[in-house]
């Protein structure tokens, strides 16, 4: 299979009653998913969608949203998963950037679009569920009943080019304007096939869907599972904000494979009782997206002694390009684990700022070449092709065994009084403090700031500074250390650095609620 839209039909023919997607309130078999995808494709074609046009998918994660993605591709279009938790203003930027004429949307989210006037480029609105009659000036509303009544037969002219654009993921650009990353069928399948083989994904597996669909981790959850005839188990948006409910869902559904950000696993550790309850069904645990603080990784692995753990690495622009299977629980004095060996057919090089390859052990920027590298950025339709090899902006060093170690983001390199400071190194020191749950560092003018979340009330600012001073050069000890109750997170569950810094600058104690108040 060389296209995402071809993955489901063979399983639907072979084993129609096998469960494809287990949602919280609707379960679709492979046959039902296949047919619903064809209904969406027919509805889109009937409304005049053109080959290569974008279809916005804006709804909670569910079987219907996967069917809409499949249907969009089968109609020759490109699916654009939109973040259900993003404000309408951001949706408006994206809708205009990719000239969305067609959206598949839940009635509740559609109400938000209408209220905020996002509708401007949208001509056809396909509602993903029953709702009272709705109207919208300039747009044609297609009620759910109309889609459900479409013919389930496959569209007449399916696409065949594996290098065609399959989907776009909008990521936050450094300028604040979301950037559309263009990915082809081949990009996705190079990652999905390699990874599914690597973790030995089988048709009896039950794969959690924790990551939002606009986040690249979901590509494995959906297409990895559907390529192997496995079942996707949706852990809904409300459950992923609670460690206890997330673990409840894993227990009750018998999830065997889970791919998520370390923050999600840490939530189950801190608030879900993972250490007491375990998760006996979990066989493979994959994580990516951020550095897993070592002490939490060790606790998570100890709580799941039968599971294998994998660290995956790669920006949205390259899917996954490095991967590392952990040989066992890291020793107590381990400061970091590798981000991996080259994977998915990709080739890695490490270069200095002049573009020359660096020696083994030296830190430089990671460049990636291979089948997972995106087609390019959508860029308002200008379609800027990807640079080859693709410069990731990540600083790494290669070990003698070929594995790469992470040294932070190139743009996390700041200068404090002329000294080069890698914020990742400051954060690694902070995270090694036994009393801190998590921490991030950033520069404000010539001052280094650390915003940290203590485990309990016993940690003081002085403790944190003293700890840093014992591990870091003096110029890397944060001048201002804040102890707060929690760090803001992005919709994908990662620590939101931009919002943390903005809240610090604004003195916003709603976002950064002090864990200790002066004078207490």
């Amino acid at each position, binding site marked *: 299979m060389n296209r995402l839209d071809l993955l489901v039909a063979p399983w639907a023919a072979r084993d129609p009653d096998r469960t494809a997607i287990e949602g919280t309130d609707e379960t679709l078999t492979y046959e039902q998913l296949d047919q619903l995808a064809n209904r969406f494709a027919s509805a889109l074609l009937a409304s005049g969608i053109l080959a290569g046009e974008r279809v916005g998918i804006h709804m909670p994660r569910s079987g219907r949203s996967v069917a809409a993605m499949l249907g969009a591709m089968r109609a020759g279009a490109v699916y654009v998963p939109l973040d259900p938790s993003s404000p309408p203003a951001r949706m408006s930027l994206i809708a205009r950037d990719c000239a969305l004429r067609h959206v598949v949307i839940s009635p509740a989210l559609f109400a938000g679009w209408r209220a905020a006037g996002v509708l401007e480029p949208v001509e056809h609105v396909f509602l993903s569920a029953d709702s009272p009659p709705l109207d919208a000036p300039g747009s044609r509303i297609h009620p759910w009943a109309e889609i459900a009544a479409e013919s389930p037969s496959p569209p007449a002219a399916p696409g065949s080019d594996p290098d065609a654009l399959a989907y776009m993921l909008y990521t936050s650009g450094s300028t604040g304007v979301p950037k559309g990353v263009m990915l082809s069928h081949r990009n996705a399948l190079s990652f999905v096939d390699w990874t599914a083989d690597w973790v030995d994904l089988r048709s009896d597996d039950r794969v959690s869907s924790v990551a939002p669909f606009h986040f690249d981790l979901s590509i494995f959850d959906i297409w990895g599972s559907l390529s192997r005839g496995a079942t996707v188990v949706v852990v809904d948006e409300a459950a992923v904000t609670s460690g206890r409910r997330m673990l409840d869902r894993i227990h009750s559904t018998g999830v065997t494979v889970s791919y998520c950000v370390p923050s999600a696993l840490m939530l189950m550790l801190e608030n879900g009782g993972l250490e007491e309850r375990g998760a006996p069904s979990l066989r493979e645990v994959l994580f990516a997206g951020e550095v897993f603080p070592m002490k939490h990784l060790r606790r998570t692995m100890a709580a799941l002694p039968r599971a294998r753990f994998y660290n995956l690495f790669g920006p949205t622009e390259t899917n996954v390009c490095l991967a590392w299977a952990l040989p066992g629980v890291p020793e107590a004095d381990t400061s970091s684990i590798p981000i991996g060996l080259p994977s998915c057919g990709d080739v890695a090089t490490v270069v200095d700022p002049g573009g020359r390859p660096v020696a083994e052990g030296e830190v430089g920027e990671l460049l990636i070449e291979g089948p997972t590298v995106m087609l390019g950025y959508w860029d308002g339709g200008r379609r800027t092709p990807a640079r080859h090899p693709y410069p990731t902006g990540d600083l790494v060093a290669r070990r003698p065994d070929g594995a790469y170690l992470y040294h932070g983001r190139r743009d996390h390199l700041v200068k404090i009084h002329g000294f080069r400071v890698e914020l990742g190194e400051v954060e690694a020191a902070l995270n090694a403090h036994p009393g801190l749950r998590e921490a991030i560092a950033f520069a404000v003018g010539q001052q280094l700031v650390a915003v940290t979340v203590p485990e309990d009330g016993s940690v*003081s600012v*002085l403790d944190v*500074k003293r700890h*840093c*001073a014992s591990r870091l050069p003096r110029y890397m000890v944060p001048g201002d250390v804040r102890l707060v109750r929690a760090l803001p997170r992005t919709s994908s569950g990662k620590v939101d650095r931009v919002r943390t810094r903005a809240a610090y600058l604004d003195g916003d104690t709603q976002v950064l609620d002090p864990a200790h108040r002066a004078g207490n």
Partner: protein
Amino acid sequence: MITRVRTELREYIVATWLSGDPRGFADDTDLQQAGVLDSFSTMALIAHLEQAFQIELEPADVNAETFRSVETISQMIAGRMPRPKESR
């Protein structure tokens, strides 16, 4: 006199470099080992001391020994300040 200097100095350091969190901070805390003072914060502290206590510090006053702790700084400052008239 020295008590006032100590209190003032402690409050200034806690407010400026410890985000107002005085826990664990004592007059004999080693300011360099604790990561509170480096060369830049020491310069800022000197400027503050000169202004707050109306004194001028000589280069010889500024060294790792005198700037070790609140206690050592307070002693040095008390020695630089004009003696108050005997009040009783």
